[in-house]
Protein backbone atom coordinates (compact mmCIF):
# COMPACT_ATOMS: atom_id res chain seq x y z
CA UNK A 1 0.00 0.00 0.00
CA UNK A 2 1.41 3.32 -1.01
CA UNK A 3 0.48 6.55 0.69
CA UNK A 4 -1.00 9.41 -1.27
CA UNK A 5 1.85 11.59 0.00
CA UNK A 6 4.31 9.45 -1.96
CA UNK A 7 2.11 9.63 -5.05
CA UNK A 8 1.94 13.42 -4.68
CA UNK A 9 5.71 13.65 -4.53
CA UNK A 10 6.48 11.05 -7.16
CA UNK A 11 3.90 12.00 -9.77
CA UNK A 12 3.66 9.72 -12.78
CA UNK A 13 5.11 12.48 -14.97
CA UNK A 14 8.23 12.50 -12.79
CA UNK A 15 8.60 8.71 -12.79
CA UNK A 16 8.15 8.63 -16.57
CA UNK A 17 10.75 11.32 -17.17
CA UNK A 18 13.17 9.56 -14.79
CA UNK A 19 12.79 6.31 -16.72
CA UNK A 20 13.22 7.76 -20.19
CA UNK A 21 15.12 10.98 -19.70
CA UNK A 22 15.15 13.49 -22.55
CA UNK A 23 18.39 15.13 -23.60
CA UNK A 24 20.59 12.73 -21.64
CA UNK A 25 23.81 11.69 -23.33
CA UNK A 26 26.23 8.94 -22.43
CA UNK A 27 29.34 11.08 -22.78
CA UNK A 28 30.20 14.74 -22.64
CA UNK A 29 33.76 15.48 -23.59
CA UNK A 30 35.52 18.38 -21.91
CA UNK A 31 34.95 21.72 -23.54
CA UNK A 32 37.96 23.82 -24.38
CA UNK A 33 37.85 27.51 -23.57
CA UNK A 34 37.68 28.41 -27.24
CA UNK A 35 34.25 26.85 -27.48
CA UNK A 36 32.86 29.75 -25.48
CA UNK A 37 33.99 32.21 -28.11
CA UNK A 38 32.77 30.42 -31.20
CA UNK A 39 32.99 27.11 -32.96
CA UNK A 40 32.76 25.97 -36.56
CA UNK A 41 28.94 25.92 -36.46
CA UNK A 42 28.85 29.47 -35.12
CA UNK A 43 27.45 28.39 -31.74
CA UNK A 44 28.95 29.33 -28.41
CA UNK A 45 29.03 26.53 -25.85
CA UNK A 46 29.47 26.27 -22.12
CA UNK A 47 28.83 23.66 -19.50
CA UNK A 48 28.60 23.34 -15.76
CA UNK A 49 29.11 20.40 -13.42
CA UNK A 50 27.12 20.39 -10.17
CA UNK A 51 27.19 17.94 -7.26
CA UNK A 52 24.67 17.38 -4.50
CA UNK A 53 27.02 16.74 -1.60
CA UNK A 54 24.27 15.11 0.48
CA UNK A 55 23.89 12.09 -1.76
CA UNK A 56 26.63 12.41 -4.37
CA UNK A 57 24.26 13.09 -7.26
CA UNK A 58 26.11 14.69 -10.17
CA UNK A 59 25.09 16.41 -13.33
CA UNK A 60 26.83 18.16 -16.19
CA UNK A 61 24.69 20.44 -18.34
CA UNK A 62 25.91 21.85 -21.65
CA UNK A 63 24.23 24.61 -23.58
CA UNK A 64 24.92 25.95 -27.06
CA UNK A 65 23.79 29.47 -27.94
CA UNK A 66 23.23 31.17 -31.28
CA UNK A 67 23.03 34.94 -31.40
CA UNK A 68 23.81 37.30 -28.58
CA UNK A 69 22.23 39.04 -25.62
CA UNK A 70 18.74 38.26 -24.30
CA UNK A 71 17.57 37.31 -27.80
CA UNK A 72 20.14 34.57 -28.05
CA UNK A 73 18.58 31.15 -28.68
CA UNK A 74 19.32 27.94 -26.86
CA UNK A 75 20.07 25.84 -29.91
CA UNK A 76 21.76 22.98 -28.16
CA UNK A 77 21.16 21.32 -24.83
CA UNK A 78 22.63 18.11 -23.47
CA UNK A 79 23.21 16.66 -20.04
CA UNK A 80 24.82 13.73 -18.37
CA UNK A 81 24.26 12.70 -14.79
CA UNK A 82 23.61 10.17 -12.11
CA UNK A 83 21.10 10.71 -9.36
CA UNK A 84 17.69 10.15 -7.87
CA UNK A 85 14.48 10.11 -9.85
CA UNK A 86 13.71 13.70 -8.85
CA UNK A 87 17.01 15.10 -10.17
CA UNK A 88 17.02 12.97 -13.31
CA UNK A 89 13.40 13.76 -14.14
CA UNK A 90 14.09 17.43 -13.49
CA UNK A 91 16.97 17.37 -16.00
CA UNK A 92 14.72 15.74 -18.56
CA UNK A 93 11.98 18.34 -18.01
CA UNK A 94 14.59 21.12 -18.16
CA UNK A 95 15.63 19.83 -21.58
CA UNK A 96 12.04 19.98 -22.83
CA UNK A 97 11.47 23.38 -21.24
CA UNK A 98 14.42 25.41 -22.48
CA UNK A 99 15.53 23.82 -25.74
CA UNK A 100 14.79 26.25 -28.56
CA UNK A 101 13.75 29.12 -26.30
CA UNK A 102 15.45 32.46 -25.97
CA UNK A 103 17.78 33.18 -23.08
CA UNK A 104 15.22 35.63 -21.67
CA UNK A 105 12.44 33.01 -21.80
CA UNK A 106 14.55 30.32 -20.19
CA UNK A 107 15.61 32.67 -17.41
CA UNK A 108 11.97 33.50 -16.74
CA UNK A 109 11.17 29.78 -16.50
CA UNK A 110 14.11 29.28 -14.19
CA UNK A 111 12.78 31.99 -11.87
CA UNK A 112 9.27 30.48 -11.87
CA UNK A 113 10.60 26.98 -11.19
CA UNK A 114 12.81 28.17 -8.34
CA UNK A 115 10.02 30.22 -6.82
CA UNK A 116 7.68 27.22 -6.90
CA UNK A 117 10.26 24.91 -5.31
CA UNK A 118 11.03 27.36 -2.53
CA UNK A 119 7.34 27.88 -1.71
CA UNK A 120 7.01 24.91 0.69
CA UNK A 121 3.85 23.90 -1.12
CA UNK A 122 2.18 27.32 -1.02
CA UNK A 123 2.37 28.12 -4.76
CA UNK A 124 -0.15 26.47 -7.05
CA UNK A 125 1.76 26.12 -10.33
CA UNK A 126 0.36 27.28 -13.63
CA UNK A 127 0.53 24.19 -15.81
CA UNK A 128 -0.11 26.28 -18.92
CA UNK A 129 3.15 28.11 -18.32
CA UNK A 130 5.28 25.47 -16.62
CA UNK A 131 4.17 22.35 -18.50
CA UNK A 132 5.67 19.16 -17.06
CA UNK A 133 7.77 21.28 -14.68
CA UNK A 134 4.55 21.91 -12.71
CA UNK A 135 4.71 18.28 -11.55
CA UNK A 136 7.55 19.28 -9.23
CA UNK A 137 5.25 21.40 -7.06
CA UNK A 138 4.95 18.44 -4.66
CA UNK A 139 8.73 18.43 -4.16
CA UNK A 140 8.51 21.86 -2.55
CA UNK A 141 6.91 20.26 0.53
CA UNK A 142 10.09 18.23 1.06
CA UNK A 143 12.87 20.76 1.73
CA UNK A 144 15.52 18.01 1.63
CA UNK A 145 14.54 17.20 -1.96
CA UNK A 146 14.40 20.75 -3.33
CA UNK A 147 18.14 20.53 -3.98
CA UNK A 148 17.58 17.39 -6.07
CA UNK A 149 15.05 19.12 -8.30
CA UNK A 150 17.13 22.29 -8.57
CA UNK A 151 20.44 20.58 -9.37
CA UNK A 152 20.05 20.50 -13.21
CA UNK A 153 18.56 24.00 -13.27
CA UNK A 154 21.45 25.38 -11.22
CA UNK A 155 23.89 23.72 -13.65
CA UNK A 156 21.97 25.22 -16.57
CA UNK A 157 22.04 28.68 -14.98
CA UNK A 158 25.79 28.43 -14.30
CA UNK A 159 26.51 27.30 -17.88
CA UNK A 160 24.40 30.12 -19.30
CA UNK A 161 26.11 32.70 -17.11
CA UNK A 162 29.43 31.89 -18.73
CA UNK A 163 28.05 32.95 -22.11
CA UNK A 164 26.32 36.19 -21.10
Amino acid at each position, binding site marked *: *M*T*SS*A*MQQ*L*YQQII*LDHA*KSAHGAVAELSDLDDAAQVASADGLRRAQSHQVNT*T*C*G*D*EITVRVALSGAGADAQIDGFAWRG*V*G*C*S*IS*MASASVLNDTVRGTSVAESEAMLDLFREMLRSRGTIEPDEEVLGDAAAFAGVSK*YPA*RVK*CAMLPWVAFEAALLQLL
Partner: protein
Amino acid sequence: MTFVAPPPASAHDRTPDGQSLHDQTLSHDEVLRIRNDFPVLHQLVNGHPLAYLDSGATSQNPISVMEAEQEYYEQRNAAVHRGAHTLAFAATEVFEAARATVAAFVGASENEIVWTSNATEGVNLVSYSFSNASLGLGGPAAARFALGAGDEIVVTEMEHHSNLIPWQQLALRTGATLRFIPVLPDGTLDLAAAAEILNSRSRLLAVTHASNVVGTINPIDDLVAMAHAVDALVFLDACQSAPHLALDLAALDVDFAVFSGHKMLGPTGIGVLYGKAELLAAMPPFLTGGSMITTVDMGTAEFLAPPQRFEAGTQRISQAIALAAAVDYLSHTGMGRIRTREAELGRRLVEGVTAIPGVRLLGPGRGAERIGLVAVDVAGVHAHDVGQFLDETGIAVRVGHHCAQPLHKKLGVTASTRASTYLYTTDDEVDRFLVVLAEVGPFFGVSR
Protein backbone atom coordinates in the same frame (compact mmCIF):
# COMPACT_ATOMS: atom_id res chain seq x y z
CA MET B 1 11.84 6.55 33.96
CA THR B 2 14.47 4.36 35.52
CA PHE B 3 17.82 3.03 34.54
CA VAL B 4 17.71 -0.51 33.19
CA ALA B 5 19.54 -3.13 35.21
CA PRO B 6 20.16 -6.12 32.98
CA PRO B 7 22.22 -9.00 34.35
CA PRO B 8 25.91 -8.25 34.80
CA ALA B 9 28.24 -8.84 31.87
CA SER B 10 29.64 -12.32 31.57
CA ALA B 11 33.27 -13.36 31.72
CA HIS B 12 33.32 -13.43 27.91
CA ASP B 13 32.48 -9.79 27.74
CA ARG B 14 36.01 -8.65 26.99
CA THR B 15 37.61 -10.83 24.38
CA PRO B 16 40.67 -9.44 22.66
CA ASP B 17 39.23 -9.65 19.17
CA GLY B 18 35.69 -8.71 20.10
CA GLN B 19 34.41 -11.66 18.13
CA SER B 20 33.05 -13.74 20.98
CA LEU B 21 29.41 -14.54 20.56
CA HIS B 22 29.13 -16.67 23.67
CA ASP B 23 27.18 -14.05 25.50
CA GLN B 24 23.46 -14.31 25.87
CA THR B 25 21.46 -12.05 23.62
CA LEU B 26 19.20 -9.30 24.91
CA SER B 27 15.67 -10.62 25.26
CA HIS B 28 12.71 -8.82 23.73
CA ASP B 29 11.67 -7.63 27.20
CA GLU B 30 15.17 -6.32 27.89
CA VAL B 31 15.20 -4.42 24.61
CA LEU B 32 11.82 -2.89 25.48
CA ARG B 33 13.15 -1.86 28.90
CA ILE B 34 16.25 -0.36 27.26
CA ARG B 35 13.98 1.61 24.92
CA ASN B 36 12.31 3.21 27.93
CA ASP B 37 15.62 4.94 28.62
CA PHE B 38 15.63 6.61 25.19
CA PRO B 39 12.90 9.28 25.03
CA VAL B 40 13.55 10.19 21.40
CA LEU B 41 12.52 6.72 20.21
CA HIS B 42 8.96 7.21 21.41
CA GLN B 43 7.51 9.46 18.76
CA LEU B 44 5.52 9.36 15.57
CA VAL B 45 7.17 10.32 12.28
CA ASN B 46 4.80 10.96 9.38
CA GLY B 47 2.08 9.26 11.40
CA HIS B 48 4.07 6.09 12.10
CA PRO B 49 6.12 5.05 15.13
CA LEU B 50 9.72 6.06 14.52
CA ALA B 51 11.93 3.11 13.54
CA TYR B 52 15.40 4.55 14.01
CA LEU B 53 17.77 2.51 11.83
CA ASP B 54 20.52 5.11 11.52
CA SER B 55 22.63 4.49 14.61
CA GLY B 56 25.65 3.97 12.37
CA ALA B 57 25.49 7.71 11.66
CA THR B 58 24.59 8.81 15.16
CA SER B 59 23.14 6.90 18.10
CA GLN B 60 20.49 8.11 20.52
CA ASN B 61 21.12 9.17 24.12
CA PRO B 62 19.74 7.43 27.21
CA ILE B 63 18.37 9.63 29.98
CA SER B 64 21.38 8.85 32.18
CA VAL B 65 23.68 10.52 29.63
CA MET B 66 21.57 13.66 29.44
CA GLU B 67 21.30 13.71 33.24
CA ALA B 68 25.07 13.42 33.62
CA GLU B 69 25.55 16.51 31.48
CA GLN B 70 22.82 18.40 33.32
CA GLU B 71 24.16 17.35 36.72
CA TYR B 72 27.60 18.64 35.77
CA TYR B 73 26.26 22.07 34.83
CA GLU B 74 23.99 22.21 37.87
CA GLN B 75 26.56 21.10 40.44
CA ARG B 76 30.17 21.30 39.32
CA ASN B 77 30.74 23.55 36.30
CA ALA B 78 34.23 25.05 36.54
CA ALA B 79 37.54 25.19 34.68
CA VAL B 80 39.45 21.92 34.99
CA HIS B 81 43.15 21.55 35.81
CA ARG B 82 43.44 25.07 37.16
CA GLY B 83 42.08 27.15 39.98
CA ALA B 84 42.25 26.23 43.63
CA HIS B 85 38.59 26.43 44.54
CA THR B 86 36.30 23.59 45.48
CA LEU B 87 34.24 23.58 42.28
CA ALA B 88 37.38 23.50 40.13
CA PHE B 89 38.58 20.45 42.06
CA ALA B 90 35.17 18.78 41.71
CA ALA B 91 35.08 19.47 37.96
CA THR B 92 38.63 18.15 37.48
CA GLU B 93 37.78 15.05 39.48
CA VAL B 94 34.76 14.05 37.38
CA PHE B 95 36.54 15.02 34.17
CA GLU B 96 39.48 12.73 34.95
CA ALA B 97 37.15 10.01 36.27
CA ALA B 98 35.47 10.11 32.86
CA ARG B 99 38.86 9.52 31.23
CA ALA B 100 39.47 6.53 33.50
CA THR B 101 36.04 5.09 32.65
CA VAL B 102 36.61 5.39 28.90
CA ALA B 103 40.18 4.05 29.21
CA ALA B 104 38.99 0.93 31.05
CA PHE B 105 36.24 0.44 28.46
CA VAL B 106 38.78 0.04 25.62
CA GLY B 107 41.62 -1.66 27.50
CA ALA B 108 43.81 1.45 27.74
CA SER B 109 45.59 3.41 30.46
CA GLU B 110 44.34 6.88 31.39
CA ASN B 111 47.41 8.62 29.98
CA GLU B 112 46.70 6.97 26.62
CA ILE B 113 43.29 8.64 26.22
CA VAL B 114 43.19 12.10 24.59
CA TRP B 115 39.89 13.97 24.30
CA THR B 116 39.09 15.40 20.90
CA SER B 117 35.97 17.05 19.45
CA ASN B 118 35.22 14.01 17.33
CA ALA B 119 37.00 11.10 15.71
CA THR B 120 37.91 13.18 12.65
CA GLU B 121 39.80 15.61 14.84
CA GLY B 122 41.71 12.67 16.32
CA VAL B 123 42.84 11.56 12.86
CA ASN B 124 43.89 15.10 12.05
CA LEU B 125 45.69 15.46 15.37
CA VAL B 126 47.93 12.50 14.57
CA SER B 127 48.43 13.50 10.94
CA TYR B 128 49.47 17.04 11.92
CA SER B 129 51.69 15.78 14.74
CA PHE B 130 53.42 13.63 12.12
CA SER B 131 53.74 16.75 9.95
CA ASN B 132 55.30 18.64 12.82
CA ALA B 133 57.70 15.77 13.44
CA SER B 134 58.55 15.86 9.73
CA LEU B 135 59.57 19.51 10.20
CA GLY B 136 61.91 18.48 12.99
CA LEU B 137 59.68 19.46 15.89
CA GLY B 138 59.82 17.15 18.89
CA GLY B 139 63.53 16.47 18.39
CA PRO B 140 65.16 13.08 17.90
CA ALA B 141 62.46 11.29 19.93
CA ALA B 142 59.88 12.32 17.33
CA ALA B 143 62.01 11.22 14.35
CA ARG B 144 60.02 7.98 14.17
CA PHE B 145 56.99 10.05 13.07
CA ALA B 146 58.87 12.07 10.45
CA LEU B 147 57.84 11.35 6.87
CA GLY B 148 59.36 12.35 3.57
CA ALA B 149 59.82 11.29 -0.04
CA GLY B 150 60.20 7.53 -0.27
CA ASP B 151 58.03 6.84 2.78
CA GLU B 152 54.64 5.24 2.28
CA ILE B 153 51.33 5.70 4.09
CA VAL B 154 48.98 2.78 3.57
CA VAL B 155 45.19 3.08 3.81
CA THR B 156 42.39 0.86 2.53
CA GLU B 157 39.74 1.33 -0.11
CA MET B 158 37.13 0.79 2.60
CA GLU B 159 37.89 3.88 4.67
CA HIS B 160 35.45 6.56 5.74
CA HIS B 161 36.64 9.86 4.25
CA SER B 162 37.76 10.91 7.74
CA ASN B 163 40.36 8.14 7.77
CA LEU B 164 41.45 8.88 4.22
CA ILE B 165 41.65 12.59 3.52
CA PRO B 166 43.86 13.50 6.52
CA TRP B 167 46.36 10.91 5.23
CA GLN B 168 46.08 12.20 1.65
CA GLN B 169 46.86 15.63 3.03
CA LEU B 170 49.75 14.32 5.15
CA ALA B 171 51.23 12.72 2.05
CA LEU B 172 50.89 16.02 0.17
CA ARG B 173 52.54 17.95 2.99
CA THR B 174 55.47 15.58 3.46
CA GLY B 175 56.10 14.12 0.01
CA ALA B 176 55.25 10.62 1.24
CA THR B 177 53.34 8.29 -1.08
CA LEU B 178 49.78 7.18 -0.30
CA ARG B 179 49.02 3.57 -1.16
CA PHE B 180 45.88 1.58 -0.61
CA ILE B 181 44.81 -1.98 0.10
CA PRO B 182 42.00 -2.89 -2.32
CA VAL B 183 38.57 -4.20 -1.36
CA LEU B 184 37.38 -7.46 -2.89
CA PRO B 185 33.94 -7.74 -4.51
CA ASP B 186 32.57 -9.36 -1.33
CA GLY B 187 33.42 -6.25 0.68
CA THR B 188 36.44 -7.68 2.49
CA LEU B 189 40.02 -6.47 2.28
CA ASP B 190 42.41 -8.13 -0.13
CA LEU B 191 44.87 -9.52 2.42
CA ALA B 192 47.13 -11.03 -0.24
CA ALA B 193 47.52 -7.57 -1.75
CA ALA B 194 48.04 -6.14 1.74
CA ALA B 195 50.99 -8.47 2.24
CA GLU B 196 52.54 -7.07 -0.96
CA ILE B 197 51.72 -3.45 -0.28
CA LEU B 198 53.09 -3.37 3.26
CA ASN B 199 56.86 -3.22 2.87
CA SER B 200 59.94 -1.66 4.41
CA ARG B 201 58.93 1.79 3.09
CA SER B 202 55.55 1.60 4.88
CA ARG B 203 55.48 3.91 7.88
CA LEU B 204 51.83 3.86 8.82
CA LEU B 205 48.79 1.69 8.13
CA ALA B 206 45.43 3.43 8.67
CA VAL B 207 42.53 0.99 8.66
CA THR B 208 38.98 0.78 9.90
CA HIS B 209 38.00 -1.90 12.39
CA ALA B 210 34.52 -2.26 10.92
CA SER B 211 33.16 -0.79 7.69
CA ASN B 212 30.54 1.91 8.17
CA VAL B 213 29.05 0.95 4.80
CA VAL B 214 29.14 -2.80 4.38
CA GLY B 215 29.58 -3.91 8.00
CA THR B 216 32.73 -5.96 7.37
CA ILE B 217 34.80 -6.61 10.49
CA ASN B 218 38.42 -6.48 9.39
CA PRO B 219 41.04 -8.99 10.62
CA ILE B 220 42.96 -6.43 12.67
CA ASP B 221 45.20 -9.07 14.26
CA ASP B 222 46.51 -10.11 10.83
CA LEU B 223 46.91 -6.55 9.63
CA VAL B 224 48.74 -5.48 12.79
CA ALA B 225 51.10 -8.45 12.45
CA MET B 226 51.82 -7.56 8.83
CA ALA B 227 52.35 -3.87 9.59
CA HIS B 228 54.50 -4.40 12.65
CA ALA B 229 56.63 -6.94 10.79
CA VAL B 230 57.78 -4.06 8.58
CA ASP B 231 57.94 -1.56 11.47
CA ALA B 232 54.89 0.40 10.33
CA LEU B 233 52.60 1.96 12.91
CA VAL B 234 48.91 1.03 12.91
CA PHE B 235 46.15 3.64 13.19
CA LEU B 236 42.73 2.10 13.86
CA ASP B 237 39.40 3.76 13.09
CA ALA B 238 37.23 2.23 15.82
CA CYS B 239 34.16 4.42 15.22
CA GLN B 240 32.03 1.46 14.16
CA SER B 241 33.52 -1.07 16.58
CA ALA B 242 33.80 0.72 19.93
CA PRO B 243 30.00 1.11 20.13
CA HIS B 244 29.23 -2.45 19.09
CA LEU B 245 31.78 -4.93 20.43
CA ALA B 246 34.11 -5.36 23.38
CA LEU B 247 37.20 -3.45 22.34
CA ASP B 248 40.61 -4.15 23.84
CA LEU B 249 43.08 -1.84 22.14
CA ALA B 250 46.06 -3.11 24.12
CA ALA B 251 45.30 -6.69 23.10
CA LEU B 252 44.82 -5.63 19.47
CA ASP B 253 48.26 -3.98 19.75
CA VAL B 254 47.29 -1.06 17.52
CA ASP B 255 49.41 2.05 17.98
CA PHE B 256 46.68 4.67 17.64
CA ALA B 257 42.90 4.51 17.53
CA VAL B 258 39.98 6.93 17.35
CA PHE B 259 36.29 6.68 18.10
CA SER B 260 33.46 9.13 18.55
CA GLY B 261 31.09 9.66 21.46
CA HIS B 262 27.90 10.27 19.54
CA LYS B 263 27.98 6.85 17.92
CA MET B 264 28.06 5.10 21.32
CA LEU B 265 25.13 6.70 23.17
CA GLY B 266 27.17 9.79 24.06
CA PRO B 267 26.74 13.42 23.08
CA THR B 268 28.14 15.16 20.02
CA GLY B 269 31.31 17.22 20.39
CA ILE B 270 33.42 14.54 22.02
CA GLY B 271 35.77 12.01 20.48
CA VAL B 272 38.65 9.94 21.74
CA LEU B 273 42.17 9.48 20.46
CA TYR B 274 44.06 6.51 21.87
CA GLY B 275 47.82 6.31 21.52
CA LYS B 276 50.28 3.91 23.10
CA ALA B 277 51.86 5.74 26.04
CA GLU B 278 55.40 5.61 24.65
CA LEU B 279 54.23 7.00 21.29
CA LEU B 280 52.20 9.86 22.74
CA ALA B 281 55.16 10.68 24.98
CA ALA B 282 57.41 11.09 21.92
CA MET B 283 54.94 12.87 19.65
CA PRO B 284 54.97 16.67 19.20
CA PRO B 285 51.64 18.46 19.75
CA PHE B 286 49.21 19.58 17.06
CA LEU B 287 47.07 22.31 18.67
CA THR B 288 49.04 24.47 21.08
CA GLY B 289 48.13 27.15 23.62
CA GLY B 290 46.78 27.17 27.13
CA SER B 291 46.50 24.14 29.37
CA MET B 292 49.15 22.10 27.57
CA ILE B 293 52.37 23.77 28.78
CA THR B 294 54.69 23.67 31.78
CA THR B 295 56.83 26.80 31.38
CA VAL B 296 56.56 29.56 28.81
CA ASP B 297 58.77 32.47 27.87
CA MET B 298 58.36 34.84 24.94
CA GLY B 299 60.36 32.61 22.61
CA THR B 300 59.71 29.04 23.65
CA ALA B 301 57.48 26.72 25.64
CA GLU B 302 57.83 23.39 27.39
CA PHE B 303 54.92 21.01 27.01
CA LEU B 304 53.06 18.86 29.50
CA ALA B 305 53.16 15.09 29.30
CA PRO B 306 50.33 13.33 27.45
CA PRO B 307 47.39 13.42 27.45
CA GLN B 308 47.36 17.15 28.40
CA ARG B 309 50.00 17.92 25.75
CA PHE B 310 47.33 17.21 23.14
CA GLU B 311 44.47 18.99 24.90
CA ALA B 312 45.06 22.70 24.26
CA GLY B 313 42.46 25.16 25.42
CA THR B 314 39.31 24.68 27.44
CA GLN B 315 38.17 21.09 27.17
CA ARG B 316 34.83 19.48 26.37
CA ILE B 317 34.16 18.80 30.01
CA SER B 318 30.44 18.10 30.10
CA GLN B 319 30.68 16.03 26.94
CA ALA B 320 33.47 13.86 28.38
CA ILE B 321 31.43 13.28 31.53
CA ALA B 322 28.34 12.44 29.49
CA LEU B 323 30.39 10.04 27.35
CA ALA B 324 31.52 8.27 30.52
CA ALA B 325 27.84 7.90 31.47
CA ALA B 326 27.22 6.37 28.05
CA VAL B 327 30.11 3.96 28.56
CA ASP B 328 28.67 3.02 31.96
CA TYR B 329 25.34 2.32 30.29
CA LEU B 330 27.00 0.10 27.67
CA SER B 331 29.17 -1.71 30.23
CA HIS B 332 26.20 -2.27 32.47
CA THR B 333 24.28 -3.85 29.60
CA GLY B 334 27.37 -5.81 28.59
CA MET B 335 29.25 -5.33 25.33
CA GLY B 336 29.28 -9.08 24.74
CA ARG B 337 25.51 -9.21 24.99
CA ILE B 338 25.14 -6.17 22.73
CA ARG B 339 27.45 -7.86 20.21
CA THR B 340 25.38 -11.04 20.26
CA ARG B 341 22.12 -9.14 19.92
CA GLU B 342 23.39 -7.05 17.00
CA ALA B 343 24.73 -10.14 15.25
CA GLU B 344 21.14 -11.46 15.44
CA LEU B 345 19.77 -8.24 14.01
CA GLY B 346 22.45 -8.31 11.31
CA ARG B 347 21.45 -11.84 10.31
CA ARG B 348 17.78 -10.85 10.24
CA LEU B 349 18.62 -7.92 7.96
CA VAL B 350 20.88 -9.97 5.67
CA GLU B 351 18.38 -12.79 5.32
CA GLY B 352 15.55 -10.33 4.78
CA VAL B 353 17.16 -8.16 2.12
CA THR B 354 18.62 -11.07 0.17
CA ALA B 355 15.08 -12.52 -0.13
CA ILE B 356 13.75 -9.39 -1.89
CA PRO B 357 13.96 -9.52 -5.71
CA GLY B 358 15.91 -6.63 -7.18
CA VAL B 359 17.64 -5.78 -3.92
CA ARG B 360 21.39 -6.32 -3.82
CA LEU B 361 23.20 -6.65 -0.52
CA LEU B 362 26.55 -4.85 -0.60
CA GLY B 363 29.46 -6.48 1.17
CA PRO B 364 29.71 -9.75 3.07
CA GLY B 365 26.92 -12.23 2.34
CA ARG B 366 24.95 -14.58 4.52
CA GLY B 367 26.85 -16.20 7.33
CA ALA B 368 29.76 -13.76 7.21
CA GLU B 369 30.80 -11.90 10.32
CA ARG B 370 29.42 -8.35 10.34
CA ILE B 371 28.26 -5.60 12.62
CA GLY B 372 24.50 -5.05 12.78
CA LEU B 373 24.03 -3.09 9.60
CA VAL B 374 23.35 -3.65 5.93
CA ALA B 375 23.77 -1.45 2.88
CA VAL B 376 21.71 -2.29 -0.18
CA ASP B 377 21.24 -1.22 -3.76
CA VAL B 378 17.69 -1.37 -5.10
CA ALA B 379 17.88 -2.07 -8.84
CA GLY B 380 16.73 0.91 -10.86
CA VAL B 381 15.90 3.08 -7.86
CA HIS B 382 18.27 5.68 -6.47
CA ALA B 383 19.05 5.47 -2.75
CA HIS B 384 17.65 8.93 -2.14
CA ASP B 385 14.27 7.77 -3.43
CA VAL B 386 14.47 4.61 -1.33
CA GLY B 387 15.17 6.68 1.78
CA GLN B 388 12.29 9.03 1.02
CA PHE B 389 9.93 6.09 0.61
CA LEU B 390 11.03 4.56 3.92
CA ASP B 391 10.84 7.89 5.74
CA GLU B 392 7.22 8.24 4.71
CA THR B 393 6.48 5.27 7.00
CA GLY B 394 8.62 6.53 9.88
CA ILE B 395 11.69 4.45 9.05
CA ALA B 396 14.94 6.40 9.35
CA VAL B 397 17.86 5.06 7.31
CA ARG B 398 20.97 6.60 5.80
CA VAL B 399 21.16 7.12 2.06
CA GLY B 400 24.04 8.36 -0.02
CA HIS B 401 27.70 7.50 -0.14
CA HIS B 402 28.09 7.42 3.68
CA CYS B 403 31.36 9.36 3.39
CA ALA B 404 32.94 6.45 1.52
CA GLN B 405 32.94 7.32 -2.17
CA PRO B 406 35.89 5.11 -3.15
CA LEU B 407 34.20 2.04 -1.65
CA HIS B 408 30.93 2.78 -3.44
CA LYS B 409 32.78 3.18 -6.74
CA LYS B 410 34.49 -0.15 -6.13
CA LEU B 411 31.12 -1.82 -5.48
CA GLY B 412 29.76 -0.28 -8.69
CA VAL B 413 27.21 2.11 -7.16
CA THR B 414 27.20 5.85 -6.48
CA ALA B 415 25.00 5.61 -3.42
CA SER B 416 23.35 3.03 -1.22
CA THR B 417 20.69 2.67 1.45
CA ARG B 418 21.97 1.66 4.88
CA ALA B 419 19.99 0.34 7.83
CA SER B 420 22.02 0.19 11.04
CA THR B 421 20.95 -1.15 14.42
CA TYR B 422 21.87 -0.76 18.06
CA LEU B 423 20.95 -2.22 21.42
CA TYR B 424 17.53 -0.52 21.34
CA THR B 425 16.53 -1.89 17.91
CA THR B 426 13.61 -4.33 17.89
CA ASP B 427 13.00 -7.25 15.50
CA ASP B 428 9.77 -5.51 14.57
CA GLU B 429 11.64 -2.42 13.36
CA VAL B 430 13.87 -4.56 11.15
CA ASP B 431 10.81 -6.35 9.78
CA ARG B 432 9.05 -3.07 9.02
CA PHE B 433 12.13 -1.95 7.10
CA LEU B 434 12.12 -5.19 5.10
CA VAL B 435 8.41 -4.95 4.26
CA VAL B 436 8.63 -1.37 3.02
CA LEU B 437 11.91 -2.02 1.20
CA ALA B 438 10.14 -4.73 -0.81
CA GLU B 439 7.51 -2.17 -1.90
CA VAL B 440 10.09 0.26 -3.29
CA GLY B 441 10.79 -1.46 -6.63
CA PRO B 442 7.10 -1.94 -7.54
CA PHE B 443 6.24 1.68 -6.62
CA PHE B 444 8.94 3.12 -8.85
CA GLY B 445 7.82 0.83 -11.65
CA VAL B 446 11.04 -1.09 -11.88
CA SER B 447 10.47 -4.12 -14.08
CA ARG B 448 12.28 -7.30 -13.30
